[in-house]
């Protein structure tokens, strides 16, 4: 089981697929599958933040849940610290749970309203049999302090707190076992803007202090850009572009990334960016187009060419990966990735 390899990455995901069965007919036989995540590969280095952006239904949350093994992958592999965790049983996963934690979008739904804040944060220690009661309570106090809550908060219940404070409680719980990786699923999208920046600052600070890695899932591109070292853009179950956050915002290569970036409203009324307006909707992941999904949506002339093509992520510039898709690249970039 332990095969620590030369791979320097903390997490590496290879060809991951998560399909959900669609049942129909009288006998409820499986008639198809929702291809929520459909062949995704990436890695995260220690201390790194990988941002994952995409629109609703692109499979980003499913991917996050599969990585912490809240969902069972259909195929592909997930390696954490060199260990293949794709098929481990829940029991075998226990030690992993200390290293990989998750922060959810809606802290109100992910915190038990019948437990005091102290019990919520203490619970991970109890489950993993860490420390005696006095030590545990001391840790709870330290954690509350670390996330900027007064120690008096321990006695209270999560519903007594505002959204931002509840997210702090969720973060304290995730930090309890000193994880190496935290999967953050839309951690600030339910918060008011002035509170959002408080939580983003906290996450960046904690990363510096504890050397944490984040998989940061969000739909807000400005937020993702702010916290991430590298950014992956997902469209219909696949990563279509992956590059350093500077490069992806300065020089997006994929047509979908370009459209996504152009859609962000500018905060300066004097700057009017030319907007790329997309026609149509995202295709259904139950019956995705045979070729380039985005090419199909925009009705690209070269769509037919892509049917049956692999459209694999290919390096187009140093560390800048993009799907090798003639519908979505400039002619220059297409020639570049084709020659690879």
């Amino acid at each position, binding site marked *: 089981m332990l095969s620590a390899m030369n791979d320097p990455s903390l997490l590496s995901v290879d060809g991951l697929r998560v399909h959900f069965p669609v049942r129909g007919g009288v006998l409820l036989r499986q008639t198809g599958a929702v291809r929520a995540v459909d062949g995704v590969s990436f890695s995260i280095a220690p201390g790194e933040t990988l941002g994952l952006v995409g629109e609703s239904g692109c499979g980003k949350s499913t991917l996050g849940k599969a990585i912490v093994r809240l969902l069972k992958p259909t195929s592909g592999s997930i390696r954490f610290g060199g260990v293949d965790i794709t098929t481990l049983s829940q029991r075998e996963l226990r030690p992993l749970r200390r290293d990989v934690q998750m922060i959810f979008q809606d802290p109100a739904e992910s915190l038990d309203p019948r437990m005091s804040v102290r019990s919520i944060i203490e619970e991970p220690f109890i489950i993993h049999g860490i420390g005696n009661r006095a030590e545990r309570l001391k840790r709870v106090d330290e954690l509350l302090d670390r996330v900027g809550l007064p120690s008096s908060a321990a006695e209270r219940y999560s519903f007594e707190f505002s959204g931002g404070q509840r997210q702090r409680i969720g973060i304290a719980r995730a930090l309890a076992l000193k994880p190496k990786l935290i999967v953050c699923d839309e951690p600030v999208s339910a918060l008011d803007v*002035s*509170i959002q*920046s408080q939580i983003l600052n906290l996450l960046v600070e904690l990363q510096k202090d504890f050397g944490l890695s984040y998989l940061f899932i969000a739909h807000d591109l400005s937020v993702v850009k702010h*916290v991430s070292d590298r950014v992956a853009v997902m469209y219909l179950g696949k990563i279509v572009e992956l590059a350093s956050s500077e490069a992806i915002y300065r020089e997006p290569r994929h047509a979908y990334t370009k*459209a996504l970036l152009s859609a962000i409203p*500018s905060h300066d*009324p*004097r700057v009017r960016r030319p907007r790329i307006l997309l026609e149509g*909707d995202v295709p259904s992941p139950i019956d995705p187009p045979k070729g380039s999904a985005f090419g199909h949506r925009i009705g690209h002339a070269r769509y037919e060419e892509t049917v049956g093509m692999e459209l694999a992520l290919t390096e187009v510039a140093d560390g800048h990966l993009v799907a090798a898709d003639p519908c979505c690249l400039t002619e220059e970039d297409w020639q570049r990735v084709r020659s690879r």
Partner: protein
Amino acid sequence: MNAAPENILEVDKLITSFETERGLLRAVDQVSFTVPSGKTVGIVGESGCGKSVTAMSIVRLLPQPAGKILGGEVRFKGRDLVHASEAEIRKIRGGEIGVIFQEPMSALNPVHRIGRQVSEVFRLHTKLSKKEAWDASVEMLKLVRIPAPEKRMMDYPHQLSGGMRQRIVIALALACRPSLVIADEPTTALDVTVQAQILDLIGRLQQEMGMSVILITHDLGVIAESCDEVVVMYAGRVVEKASSSELFARPLHAYTKGLLRSIPTLETPSKSVLSTIPGMVASLADHTHGCRFCQRMGRITAGGMGTRERPGFAEVSPGHWVETCPECYQP
């Protein structure tokens, strides 16, 4: 009548309260602003600042029986809406004033086909026959750029995507060619690319039909992109009001400045420390009479509450109004 001809809507010292277990809570506390003809006015603020309640007070769609307008005036084309009869307001709402709600799924009736819901608006507000109303509805769906409108008329709301549903809601609001449209967070539930489509659509329809728009949002980016004038609300009050270009170039109130600074943009260096506004949005129950942003910043202590004067609201440069609390606004 005596309304200035260039303003289609004038809201003057509007006060809206809710009756709750904790007593009468003032959600909107003397809010005043005007909507010039053909322009878009944005109301921006965080949750609980009273922006939606302000909008719903204008068309008298407050939750009943808790919500009440206790004071002030709302004049639409010179007509008083606060004291208008229920029948009159029903005529105006959906007719001359269209409303676009945030969550399209809850604004549409899930058990009726799209066609019936859109043509109902025509049947209620015009003298069109059933057939004419149906044809007008198809036209309306075309106008909001729904592909294959005849087919979509036979669909139920759940069969459409979020963006398409929001287009239907827009079609409902615009059916009777209103002169004023109130859009309450019309794109908040949508993805950015769909948001761009919808904002573009509202903008183009506004040009074509020459209507005025009140756009309520928490997203300053949306405001910057599509509004001529901006009203910034905090804790039930207007703290600043200016043209959009003026407000983003020269924010004057501490709250507006804080709000603008706390948002990461694509230009902010990665992982830099964002400036924050400490504390949280004040809850309605413990609003002070004095400056409410000072209350959030901890400059008004519990003991001092109620003893402070409400700060004035003054035009400090042409068209630029600000709440003149000496702590939050330094000229």
